[in-house]
């Protein structure tokens, strides 16, 4: 996710996805915000928010809920330093503006690494950890992630190709 913040450090805008197009206008893929930041390209040039003074990538998808936080940026981060000589990330924490609860980047990334290691080469499921562009994390009033909870539904008979063909 791409976030922008104002002079007070308050998150004022987010971007879940942005496609990249070729010179003919054809979509060729999604822009990797984290990689753009790592390459030293100012993210604030991708989406210009007039009130924003900074932009950075964040590993979680929070959608509009991110605007309940302010950013804590790494003071050593500088776009002018070459890659490898500056911190990997610009935003190192999101702090809830009301409760003060911190969402530390290192905590999220360490958990991602742990799950990848546990997966032993298989795809690691981190959806509950970082959400997704179409399903952001659900946060409580203090900014803590909460389970979405199971949806209670009744199961009705439904049409499938199997039972249309006489198979159940």
């Amino acid at each position, binding site marked *: 996710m791409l976030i922008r913040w104002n002079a007070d450090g308050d998150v004022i805008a987010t971007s879940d996805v*942005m*496609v990249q197009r070729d010179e003919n206008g054809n979509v060729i893929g999604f822009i990797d915000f984290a990689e753009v930041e790592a390459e030293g390209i100012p993210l604030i040039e*991708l*989406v*210009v928010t007039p009130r924003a003074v900074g932009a950075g990538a964040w590993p979680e998808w929070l959608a*509009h809920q991110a*605007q309940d936080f302010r950013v804590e940026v790494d003071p050593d981060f500088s776009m002018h330093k070459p890659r490898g000589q500056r911190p990997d990330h610009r935003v190192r924490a999101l702090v809830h503006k009301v409760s003060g609860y911190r969402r530390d980047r290192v905590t999220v990334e360490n958990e991602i690494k742990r799950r990848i290691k546990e997966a032993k080469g298989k795809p690691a499921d981190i959806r509950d950890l970082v959400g997704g562009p179409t399903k952001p994390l*659900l946060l409580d009033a203090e900014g803590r992630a909460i389970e979405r909870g199971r949806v209670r539904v009744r199961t009705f008979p439904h049409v499938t190709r199997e039972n249309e063909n006489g198979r159940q």
Partner: protein
Amino acid sequence: VAAHNNRGSRQRHQKGFYPQSRGSHGARFDPTAVDFPLYGSQMDMEAVQVGPDTIGQIPGDEYIEDGSLGLSPFADSVRPVVISTGGSDSDGELLQEDGYELQQETGWTILGESGTPGDPGDLLPTLPDDDYPDGATLFNLTDNKIYRNVAGVWTRALDGADLIAESVTASAISAGAIGTVELSASAVIALVSNEGGTTVINPAGLTVTDGAITVENAIGTVIIDGSTLIFRILYNGTFTSVIPDDGTTFNQSEYESLPGLGTFAATPAHLTYLATGNTGADNQHLSYFHNYNASERWLSSTSGGATNQSVVYVWDQHQAFTRLSGSTCQVAVNSAIHQASGSSYTVYVRTYVLEQSAL
């Protein structure tokens, strides 16, 4: 190779298949031609002096005791060969060995390289042949293949069922030799590429250049027809529009520019929701909403005149839209408010920038 031809001792002439000369052991023993002392009607072998002059003169089948010869008389590279016979009436006799052709009367035959090399079929006996009934087997040195008489036709075909299960490796199959006929209709194929039909399935996705993808749902309704255009999401994000309570701001325009999407020749479509709260449970208004006072307000139809008509009092109204700044897409929200609320006013915007596209 199984031997099962009952051809007996009959001699035959054929190209690449030589007549046999039975009993070609060499000259027979003639007692009168040698100067051996004979004792009555029986030769005492212990008294026979064997030397260079007797080489080839002693018939083994008469003067050597059956079963008395071991391996020791043979050089290390020479060993007697036992021919297994297949026919019930065959004696398993080795008929000829001439360096090119080896033939046993039992019907197990090796066809040699003598004659004119060429089509292996030229070396095979013409069928039907009583000497090579159905099931007769030959080994042809010309092509090093085994031939069988199957219903009057020489064949070197093999029964695939006789192959060891899962023993055929990829290197044993010619590249490109397997076609769609050999595949199961339900086969799952990785990295499919049908360049002729310009259909490519690879880890990066599915590409259909000249065809159309058709998808039916469970009840047979075509939900993707390969022709209908759809909206594709180019950008998805959120931002806020904050209207200060400064007593002077009655309208405001907040926007975001999206240079990351490149340039546009025409203003793209959008789907933008506006909300007055920042929780998932807040009402989402589609691009436009206004708050109005449920009570009426009264106006005068003339300046300075008495109020004579009522109107609905609108507190604020907001509208979201896309526009182009030069050729860069912008998502904007215009707001018009009254200044009696006593606090700032925030509109939460969630927007999708869309592009009409073929599926």
